[in-house]
């Protein structure tokens, strides 16, 4: 009889559920995709339902439910924090304690109530950073590897290192709250006017425009960094232990002013601060990884935790660091804790053996729901959408590749939804990377967001090293590493274009084409690369092949299928709404193709009403 283990992360942010059957990952999904509430922290009711349905079981067949962290230890940290900061931390105390008194101290009961009486299995609890470590090591292709997990904070740990071997992970050292790289990065996210816990990747995207002129100041005054990667923060510059803001007045005085108000103009100061904190982040990650390497002696590294989503730091670590191979969990944030916890229960609690597979046991992170052609057709008919079903795939691919070649923007909805924050070709908006207009159109008319951020390229794996400075056939299916565009594809900028690089308006700077694939080339010629291969990506790979045959270009633009503030679309209804409310030209739902120009007037969704549903991130 099979053993079913359900991993859950919840009650903080990014709730998720993951189901493992006999050690094999069957399903995993974030709750926000179903509820349409970004970073939904509630119990992942719908994600659990989906996981059970995907496995074809009900709650009575779950053997173990494992929660991704130890609530009492986390509560102890909270109480210690209040004790340390009293009497000036009342604002945070008033916010936090009722949540614990009402719910979080009684998690076994809460979980059982949510799963219903049918569930008679065990409810157990993992350690937060061990869950991250497990999510990084167990699905990786390595038999043994050093482990590095970095996030804001779990129970006490903020960074942890260890070693994985076979079916065992050993987390041997950690850095503890309040000294946290994740918190430090988030403090600068807050100070530069972006939203904590969702704007960090904007800071990373902003960094290449600036110079790290505050790096030394940060390392001198705010954060003491040791050679072994240990980090100590001067807490007088921060407010997160006692208030509901990240930074203190002292921090504001150090950087000559209050935080940038959200949505206001981004100045050179914010740009240089972004460059500076990114440089510090890379230094910390680099030194901590070296420390992990020294302790473990391994040439492989696995990473997880929110900071592991910093693909610029990951790219530098791979290029310049001591490891031959690095594997990063694509759901590196807390959502991935659900998967890690489930795998921990299988390997550590039950002591089951593990075979490291050269393939990808994360299965492209395509672990969410999928929808059949019949179901989609019925849905489209029911709402009166005009669509055409292609029974011949070659015909479909030819039409879509042709539209992209004409500069059209396509909503691409195929197969199982991605687990993790990135769209990897199942719920993606795609376009022609060669067109200088693609970036502007996608940003302003579809994503409705700041235009300084670059889009990520998808590249056929067999051509990756022709386009980017990587090894031949480099396997980067999760968009977690940055590499530079090859020299011979770069454009030499004219004097007038160089002059535009000093324009305070970042939209002017980003509009200068820097390569033959300008839509994905950042101002420093870098790109967040995702490789696409036949085994993992199926039809998406074949579409890119067809595009390559037509244009000679093995690269397309890929961005997540959503607008700003909206969770990535989950089902055909979400995708159709997003398509109808934006200026996307075409929507492909499995075999069904919809063209915007053919849709009846009454079906078009009002853009402003649609945007109003979502809080800006």
């Amino acid at each position: 009889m099979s053993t079913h283990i359900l991993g859950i992360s919840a009650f903080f942010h990014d709730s998720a559920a993951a189901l493992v059957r006999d050690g094999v990952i069957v399903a995993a999904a974030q709750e926000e995709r179903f509820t349409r509430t970004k970073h939904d922290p509630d119990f992942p009711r719908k994600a659990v339902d989906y996981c059970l349905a995907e496995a074809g079981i009900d709650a009575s067949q779950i053997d173990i439910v494992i929660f991704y962290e130890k609530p009492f230890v986390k509560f102890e940290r909270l109480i210690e924090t209040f004790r340390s900061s009293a009497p000036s931390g009342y604002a945070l105390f008033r916010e936090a304690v009722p949540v614990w008194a009402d719910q979080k101290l009684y998690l076994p009961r809460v979980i059982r109530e949510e799963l219903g009486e049918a569930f008679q299995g065990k409810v157990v609890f993992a350690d937060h950073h061990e869950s991250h470590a497990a999510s990084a090591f167990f699905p990786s292709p390595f038999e043994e590897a050093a482990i590095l997990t970095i996030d804001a904070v779990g129970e006490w740990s903020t960074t942890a290192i260890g070693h994985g071997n076979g079916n065992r992970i050993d987390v041997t050292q950690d850095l503890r709250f309040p000294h946290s790289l994740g918190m430090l990065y988030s403090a600068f996210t807050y100070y530069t006017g972006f939203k904590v816990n969702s704007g960090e990747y904007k800071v990373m995207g902003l960094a290449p425009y600036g110079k790290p002129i505050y790096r030394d100041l940060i390392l001198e005054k705010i954060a003491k960094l040791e050679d072994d990667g240990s980090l100590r923060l001067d807490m007088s510059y921060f407010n997160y232990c006692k208030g509901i803001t990240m930074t203190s007045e002292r921090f504001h005085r150090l950087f000559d002013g209050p935080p940038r108000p959200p949505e206001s103009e981004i100045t050179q100061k914010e740009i240089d601060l972004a460059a500076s904190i990114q440089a510090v982040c890379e230094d910390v990650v680099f030194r901590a990884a070296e420390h992990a390497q020294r302790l473990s002696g391994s040439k492989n590294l696995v990473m997880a935790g929110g900071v592991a989503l910093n693909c610029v730091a990951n790219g530098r670590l791979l290029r310049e660091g001591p490891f031959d191979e690095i594997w990063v969990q694509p759901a590196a944030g807390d959502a991935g804790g659900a998967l890690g916890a489930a795998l921990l229960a299988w390997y550590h609690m039950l002591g089951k053996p593990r075979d490291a597979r050269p393939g990808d046991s994360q299965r492209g992170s395509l672990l969410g729901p999928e929808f059949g052609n019949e179901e989609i057709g019925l849905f489209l008919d029911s709402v009166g959408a005009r669509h055409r079903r292609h029974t011949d795939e070659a015909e479909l691919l030819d039409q879509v590749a042709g539209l992209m070649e004409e500069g059209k923007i396509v909503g691409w909805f195929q197969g199982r939804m991605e687990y993790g924050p990135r769209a990897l070709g199942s719920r993606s908006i795609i376009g022609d990377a060669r067109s200088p207009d693609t970036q502007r159109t996608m940003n302003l008319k579809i994503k409705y967001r700041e235009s300084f951020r670059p889009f990520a390229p998808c590249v056929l794996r067999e051509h990756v090293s022709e386009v980017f400075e990587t090894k031949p056939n480099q396997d980067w299916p999760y968009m977690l590493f940055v590499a530079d565009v090859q020299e011979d594809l770069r454009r030499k900028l004219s004097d007038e274009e160089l002059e535009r690089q000093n324009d305070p308006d970042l939209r002017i700077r980003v509009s200068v084409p820097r390569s033959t694939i300008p839509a994905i080339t950042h101002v420093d010629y870098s790109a967040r690369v995702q490789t696409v291969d036949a085994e993992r990506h199926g039809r998406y790979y074949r579409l890119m092949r067809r595009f390559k045959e037509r244009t000679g270009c093995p690269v397309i633009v890929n961005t997540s299928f959503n607008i700003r503030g909206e969770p990535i679309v989950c089902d055909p209804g979400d995708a159709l709404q997003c398509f109808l409310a934006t200026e996307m030209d075409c929507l492909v739902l499995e075999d069904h193709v919809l063209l915007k120009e053919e849709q009846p007037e009454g079906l078009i969704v009002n853009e402003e009403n649609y945007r109003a549903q979502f809080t800006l991130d």
Partner: protein
Amino acid sequence: MSGVTLPNPADREAVVGFWVSITLLAGGAMLALLAIVGWWSIATVLAVVVIVAGCLIIGLPRERSIHRVYLLWNRAARGYAERARAVVLAIWYYVVFATMARTGGSNFQKQGSDWLQRETLSAKAYANLGGSETGDVQAGTLRDYRRWAARSGRLWLVFLIPLFSLLVLLDPKGARAAASDIYTLY
């Protein structure tokens, strides 16, 4: 039609139950008051009974009206609960935590930011909501918390249990989303 428009039978039962309870409670309070001030007599008791019966007879068929009273009562109760929670939390924080802050060191002072050795959880420790100590199957009650505090040597945390109980009693069942600009502690 007397205006029974409540869509949900559960709501309707709650409103009717509320009106019966509040009327009987008010009647009981009036009787107690009469006894206290010395106006207790058959006539005054009868008057109270008539008032209570009248309220029930007149009120119960007018569910729309008593629904308004019900909503007002709930709003007032929620407001009271929220204020009471704030008072309880403030007293607890400024008395207990501010005092504790002066009576000893904190983990921040004991622990540096340098790497600390740690151990991976044993297979038996997963049952526990707390740390690495092994434990029994957890029921999801404050008993788990008390046992964890005792086993892990953090006995002073037991003294927070009355606070939790008070907070649960004063739970206004409002939405408690985390503040938007922090993701720090809870």
